[in-house]
């Protein structure tokens, strides 16, 4: 089942999302990228109703890009998160709401802080040190309560992330096979092989 995690560390946010695209009980694809790069220092992992997810993610991606083109500089992570949250909250009370859950990880280049936001399809938003969506959340969050360290180095952060993925593989009935892992820090966004 769909699962995504994100954790903050010393100067970075790590994000991981499974790569399965499934319709009902059938796996259609196993290399789907569910983490979008919204701006040079902003990542968004999305999950939820197939169709809604890609549509909403692209809508967000284009609007954040438009802001950057118009104003030279990109929105800061917190401002982008607020805008995205508002989009979901407005959608919730529309005729056909988007059913999309998000993790938003960014690095604020003016305050030099990594930031992580947990956002659900209702438009609920909170800034957290670590977060997860999907069935994996039930296993990962308790594990992260024990092992998460906000001042962990990248290596330590990756170890914690591996723990989460292993735990979900061990305990969840229908486990996602592969994960894509991305990091955002002062140097921007890049992909990491676990």
């Amino acid at each position, binding site marked *: 089942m769909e699962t995504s995690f994100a954790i903050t560390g010393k100067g970075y946010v790590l994000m991981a999302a499974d790569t399965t695209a499934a319709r009902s009980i059938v796996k259609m694809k196993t290399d789907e990228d569910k983490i979008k790069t919204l701006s040079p220092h902003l990542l968004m992992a999305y999950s939820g109703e197939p169709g809604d997810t890609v549509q909403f993610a692209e809508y967000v991606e284009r609007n954040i890009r438009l802001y950057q083109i118009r104003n030279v500089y990109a929105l800061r992570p917190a401002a982008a998160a607020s805008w995205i949250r508002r989009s979901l909250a407005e959608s919730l009370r529309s005729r056909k709401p988007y059913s999309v859950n998000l993790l938003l990880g960014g690095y604020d280049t003016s305050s030099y802080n990594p930031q992580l936001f947990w956002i659900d399809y209702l438009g*609920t938003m909170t800034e957290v040190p670590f977060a997860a969506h999907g069935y994996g959340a039930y296993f990962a969050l308790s594990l992260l309560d024990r092992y998460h360290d906000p001042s962990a180095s990248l290596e330590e952060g990756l170890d914690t992330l591996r723990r989460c993925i292993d735990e979900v593989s061990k305990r969840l009935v229908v486990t996602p096979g592969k994960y894509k892992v991305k990091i955002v820090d002062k140097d921007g966004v890049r992909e990491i092989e676990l």
Partner: protein
Amino acid sequence: MSIMDHNGGSVIAMVGKDCVAIASDLRLGDRALSISSNFQRIFPITDRIYVGLPGLGTDVATLRERFRFRVNMYTIKEEREIEPETFAHLVSSTLYEHRFGPYFIEPVMAGMSKTPSGGYKPFIAATDLIGCLNFAKDFVVAGTASSKLYGVAEGLWEPDLEPEDLFETISQTLLNAADRDAFSGWGAIVHIITKDKIITRTLKGRMD
């Protein structure tokens, strides 16, 4: 299970002697799963008014933004700060605008209002999710632990408590009521408002 219980959380406000207090727990959940243990649902409106917004998490953020917008426009146009009574009616009318598709929030307000003689007197109020105002003289409660809060507050509150005693009373009331509620907890934040200062303290509760 009602949508009001989806994210959990509770708020209480109490009147003291020349002071008021407002407090909330810090949990944000997704049904039974805790997501955050540092979710702020009490917000400053002016130097002397605080509002607590227990209910659905998405509407906490939306209403906070709307109230800030309306209060800022009021402050700019009137060139003075809004009074608690006026703010209470602003809250009420904002909620009633959505009478047939409401925000799932039951706001609690606490503040010190100016008297004609130049002094200040305590003010607390609460509304239901469509804006029906309740001006209480002792305490108001709302959120998933409201039924428990009533019981404890009824037992602990007394008139004319000094700021420090009021702090103790509201803290004990909230922490003990939250302990009996599965959807509230993870510590609390308490604001004591007096005529010239605000005391804010973050409390640890049973962190389990």
